[in-house]
């Protein structure tokens, strides 16, 4: 296993505590945990693409990073206005 793959696995493990907060915390804490998890997911996708040497899959983290911003803002505005 390469260092990139091991790091991706460690980061996937680091999502677990944030996942617990996402499921069991209040609404505001859940949104923060969601932002944390999506940020880690961007790195995991980049690490896996490099670990398996698949250039085409490097587009996934780029898209995910863009969607993290847009999706997060939608969640936040929804909380601010309607929840």
């Amino acid at each position, binding site marked *: 296993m390469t*260092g*990139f793959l*091991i*790091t991706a696995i*460690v*980061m996937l493990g*680091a*999502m*677990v*505590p*944030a996942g*617990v*907060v996402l499921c069991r915390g*209040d*609404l*505001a*804490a859940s*949104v*923060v*945990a969601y*932002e*944390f998890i999506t*940020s*880690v997911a*961007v*790195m995991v996708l*980049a*690490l896996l*693409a*490099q670990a398996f040497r698949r*250039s085409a899959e*490097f*587009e996934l*983290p*780029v898209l*995910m*990073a*863009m969607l*993290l*911003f847009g999706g*997060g*803002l939608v969640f*936040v*505005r929804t*909380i*601010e206005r309607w*929840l």
Partner: protein
Amino acid sequence: MAASIVADILLGLAALVVLLASVGIAVMPGAYAKLHFVTPVTVVAPALVTLAVLVQAGLSENAGQSVLALVFLIIGGPFLSHATIRAVRMRETGDWRHPARGIKPGEEKEQ
């Protein structure tokens, strides 16, 4: 060989940052305190991962796309953090502005 060692050190640091931030997210009370631990994950750890890809792959297409993802994270992270704090404060007080500055919570709620 040296590049591989440097990349592994950078990846280890990135993993450590993410693990510590994860503990912070789980342990700290309230959204305000938890949000502090999102910043290292949106800025520091992606920078370390991008450096590791640069060291390992050199100036390649992969490294370029990693840099692009890093730029999106660095630009979007502070905006998202600010919007989150604002939303949480509006949920709690009805208005994001400080009540001591003449605007009482809920008095002039933004539409």
